[in-house]
């Protein structure tokens, strides 16, 4: 853990101005030395955005089979402060995350969700995360649902499927759900197919990534839609369907509408 902390601190330092970094280290000193008090930590966390700014990180780093990327400096600073508190005051670490999350504003909550795979590596706070994924605040939802390793690691199947469907529903890209391919299951496939049917029936725009969550093995009735959207040549639908087919056994009807190079790409040339 302390190795991780060093790397994260370095990343933050590189992404901050020297004045911002100095303000941050003052807080750090307070957190290390002070007797633990939730209210102190909360006031520090709430003020961090004004101290270290909210700019993009200068680079990204890989830690614990995940990548710290697409975070802002305030988010990194907040996660870092909570990690150090967990580290130096381990006796109160248990209740800490829940309290900080519930009593944080949306920016603090987003930071906790983005860093949850580091803050809660064992998945003990999955209930909190699953509940967070019920929000209609798109930015908050994205913090847990997009480019975050936590859901694939710690959500149960029902919650993971809901997360996928809600991602489509909010107009977001399910390609950004990490571990989707591994977690694809028959009920997810069925739910997404039903959503696809509804959208088509209502004559509404179809999320172009939806194909990634439909497997013809589980939902053979989706075959006609695959063919229809392969033929209509919208490049985004096309690319997503091809990418989805890559992991599937492809029925002959679909093979017949693929070009030679597409078949080759899918390594699906019939013998």
């Amino acid at each position, binding site marked *: 853990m302390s190795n991780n902390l060093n790397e994260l601190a370095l990343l933050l330092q590189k992404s901050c101005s020297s004045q911002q970094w100095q303000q941050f280290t003052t807080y750090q000193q307070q957190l290390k030395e002070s007797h633990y008090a939730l*209210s102190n930590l*909360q*006031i520090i966390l*709430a*003020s961090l*955005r*004004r101290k270290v700014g909210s700019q993009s990180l200068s680079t990204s780093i890989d830690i614990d089979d995940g990548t710290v990327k*697409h975070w802002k400096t305030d988010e990194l600073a907040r996660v870092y402060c909570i990690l150090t508190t967990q580290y130096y005051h381990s006796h109160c670490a248990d209740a800490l995350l829940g309290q900080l999350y519930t*009593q944080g*504003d*949306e*920016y603090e*909550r987003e930071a906790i969700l983005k860093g949850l795979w580091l803050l809660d590596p064992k998945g003990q706070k999955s209930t909190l995360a699953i509940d967070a994924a019920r929000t209609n*605040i*798109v*930015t*908050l939802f*994205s*913090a847990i649902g*997009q*480019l975050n390793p936590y859901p694939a690691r710690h959500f149960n199947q029902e919650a993971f499927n809901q997360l996928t469907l809600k991602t489509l529903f*909010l*107009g*977001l*890209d399910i*390609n*950004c759900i990490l571990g989707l391919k591994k977690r694809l299951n028959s009920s997810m496939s069925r739910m997404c197919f039903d959503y696809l049917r509804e959208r088509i029936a209502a004559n509404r*725009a*179809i*999320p*172009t990534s939806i194909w990634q969550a439909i497997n013809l093995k589980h939902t053979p009735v989706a075959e006609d839609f695959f063919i229809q959207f392969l033929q209509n040549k919208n490049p*985004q639908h096309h690319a997503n369907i091809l990418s989805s087919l890559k992991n599937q056994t492809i029925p002959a009807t679909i093979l017949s509408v693929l070009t030679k190079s597409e078949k080759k790409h899918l390594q699906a040339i019939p013998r």
Partner: protein
Amino acid sequence: MKYFEPHVHMISRTTDDYERMAAAGIIGVVEPAFWQGQPRTSAGTFIDYFDALIGWERFRASQFGIRHYCTIGLNPKEANNIAMAEEVIKILPRYLAKDGVVAVGEVGYDDISNAEERFFAEQLQLAKAFELPVLVHTPHRDKVKGTERTLALIKEIGLNPEMVVVDHLNEITIDLVIDTGCWKGHSVYPETKMSEARMIELLKRYGTDKMIVNSAADWGVSDPLKVPKVGQAMLAAGYDTTEVEKVLFENPINFFAQSGRIAIADVTRPLIDQTQLHEDNSALRGQSPIIEAEAEQTS
């Protein structure tokens, strides 16, 4: 023309209002914490209310291209339940540290009771400790006495008057505030309080410095478009656009800017920019954009 609405209770307004406000040129609002209209049954309801002000309502406003800030405080009407008020005072500090909170408020007198005075004073101390400005509500009844006691208390606590806006002023009470250094707030209502025409008269008589205008729209009969309407009235009365923007955009922002958490440069139309969060994907793809594209923005 761009406008800033420094006192409006959006939680009790509909999305139609947000749409009309954005269309009329309002690009930022301050939502002061106020009372619920009926007695609260526990301090927990304050937590949910404050959380809505710093979370859900801010998001809701952003969906219509409006920046949302708030002030947090225990309203005088709700200060008279002493046991509950004591609990609320304890939870205030953690809110006063949050980013979107640009002042303590609305605080002040309503019935002008001892309990109101006690919690008003305690919150002025909190404002001092957190270096935040204060939005002071003046009572609807016994207004002159309420305003006098307000100004006396500010002096007694030793608060810098520059950090205070005294709100809901009228032709009589403004005279009490004019030489104190405090900012002067005016709520323009459809019927009671202030009208557009009376507001213009005040601007003519007292000038435009430190003058602030709001609608104070809430769940009662009120009009969240009063700020733009005063703008129109000012133009009709011969003020130029610079003067209109000074009173109806810059003044209120500059007052709240003393918190260090808002500045004129920050108050632009927000874009829900998902790509900013996740630069590798065009996140809101497939959904008709909620906010107009940057190119279509005015001002």
